[in-house]
């Protein structure tokens, strides 16, 4: 019997394997990952300083434990070069270690699941290469911790989910943080101005220096081991370390090369199936209704649903409203992104304790943001959504 092959061992891939195994004890499962295979909770990367955890301590399960739990064949540090749908197989290449050569091999599949995730968008700025880090994997995180050791001054480019959480985590742990973003308030793409201003104030009190409505023009070495960053509003910043958090792009190269339909992410139907038979896609590499949803909850739910389909119980994916929690010290925030852009925000509350309801043109609640003490209203809002 040919196996179910999962490409990618991030949250989506490993959750799918776990859910398949819970439903079917015998179906063969193979996981191929270009990274080391270990389970960790990616949202913790931007909170781990406050959790007092190192990169290693963030690992929830290592290769051996996963192998045991999943009864799966695991190929780590192995790239997939090509999908051949006519033959229902993939061509893999394991990365050679010091004394091992690159090895290429073919694996046949019964069903193939692409769960290749998303990668940080590279900064198109002079001097960025080698001077800017993005933190999207556990290995990135380990490098980041090495880089900030004995340093003080951090510049974060991007004031979205990841940028704001890192700003909070770093300032709460004694670092001086500047944040640059071309928008006008934190999380501008997801929340209304009034809530954004509240978060901005809270993080300012924590020590964050904001630079909104401006961009980075140039990055140079200052000749003394530090960096010089010129902003387009003429401000000069001298950080020790620069983090780029300007967003993710779905990893669709493999799908594209196999002629699967993709736009921003891999296009899937309501059964998580791609445009080709027996090939499915899951998690951050996918777009749902034209929109990537790079969050844990939709990936988990998609994995659970697809596991049913793959074990013989064809099930449609229905994504309910799922709030995303953002950890900002002194101002926890919950965002349940509106499903439509047509409508308007209605905001109540004072200071940082705000509730913002997004009402569509029929006056129905279709998204919300809760901050500070108002996060306690989560249940009530969800039941109305």
């Amino acid at each position, binding site marked *: 019997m040919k196996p179910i092959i999962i490409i990618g061992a991030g949250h989506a891939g490993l959750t799918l394997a776990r859910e398949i195994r819970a439903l079917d004890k015998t179906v063969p499962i193979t996981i191929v990952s270009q990274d080391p295979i270990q389970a960790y909770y990616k949202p913790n990367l931007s909170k781990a300083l406050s959790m007092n955890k190192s990169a290693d301590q963030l690992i929830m399960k290592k290769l051996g434990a996963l192998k045991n739990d999943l009864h799966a064949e695991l190929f780590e540090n192995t790239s997939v070069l090509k999908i051949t749908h006519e033959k229902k197989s993939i061509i893999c290449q394991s990365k050679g270690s010091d004394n091992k050569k690159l090895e290429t091999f073919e694996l046949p599949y019964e069903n193939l699941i692409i769960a290749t995730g998303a990668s940080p968008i590279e900064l198109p700025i002079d001097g960025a290469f080698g001077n800017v880090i993005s933190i999207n994997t556990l290995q990135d995180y380990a490098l980041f911790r090495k880089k900030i050791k004995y340093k003080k001054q951090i510049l974060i480019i991007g004031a979205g989910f990841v940028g704001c959480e890192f700003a909070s985590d770093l300032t709460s742990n004694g670092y001086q943080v500047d944040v640059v973003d071309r928008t006008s308030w934190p999380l501008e793409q997801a929340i209304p101005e009034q809530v954004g201003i509240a978060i901005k104030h809270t993080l300012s009190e924590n020590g964050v220096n904001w630079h909104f409505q401006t961009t980075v023009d140039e990055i140079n070495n200052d000749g003394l081991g530090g960096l010089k960053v010129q902003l387009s509003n003429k401000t000069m910043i001298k950080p020790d370390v620069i983090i780029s958090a300007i967003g993710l792009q779905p990893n669709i190269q493999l799908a594209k090369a196999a002629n699967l339909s993709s736009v921003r992410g891999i296009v899937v139907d309501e059964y998580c199936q791609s445009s080709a038979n027996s090939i499915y896609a899951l998690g951050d590499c996918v777009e749902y209704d034209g929109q990537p949803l790079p969050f*844990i909850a939709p990936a988990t*739910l998609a994995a659970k649903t697809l596991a049913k389909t793959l074990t013989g119980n064809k099930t449609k994916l229905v994504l309910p409203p799922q709030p995303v*929690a953002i950890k900002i010290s002194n101002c926890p925030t919950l965002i349940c992104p509106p499903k439509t852009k047509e409508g308007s925000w209605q905001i109540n509350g004072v200071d940082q304790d705000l509730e913002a309801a997004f009402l569509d043109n029929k006056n129905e609640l279709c998204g919300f943001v809760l901050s500070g003490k108002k996060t*306690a209203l989560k*249940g009530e809002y969800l039941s109305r959504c």
Partner: protein
Amino acid sequence: MSNSKVWQCLTCEFVYSEAIGIPEEGIPPGTAWEDVPEDWLCPDCAMGKDDFAMQEVQNESSFI
């Protein structure tokens, strides 16, 4: 509370302790897992209670 149990989310490792509850979400200390509302969502990863796979971890009292 000698039978108080601790549950952990499989996805994000959020810990629910029956002894502590989650007072800020209106779940008072001493609330058994089965009495946590069915529409409750994990505060960290937002998965629901039944398809969320909280697993019982070591019973607190058994450490003693």
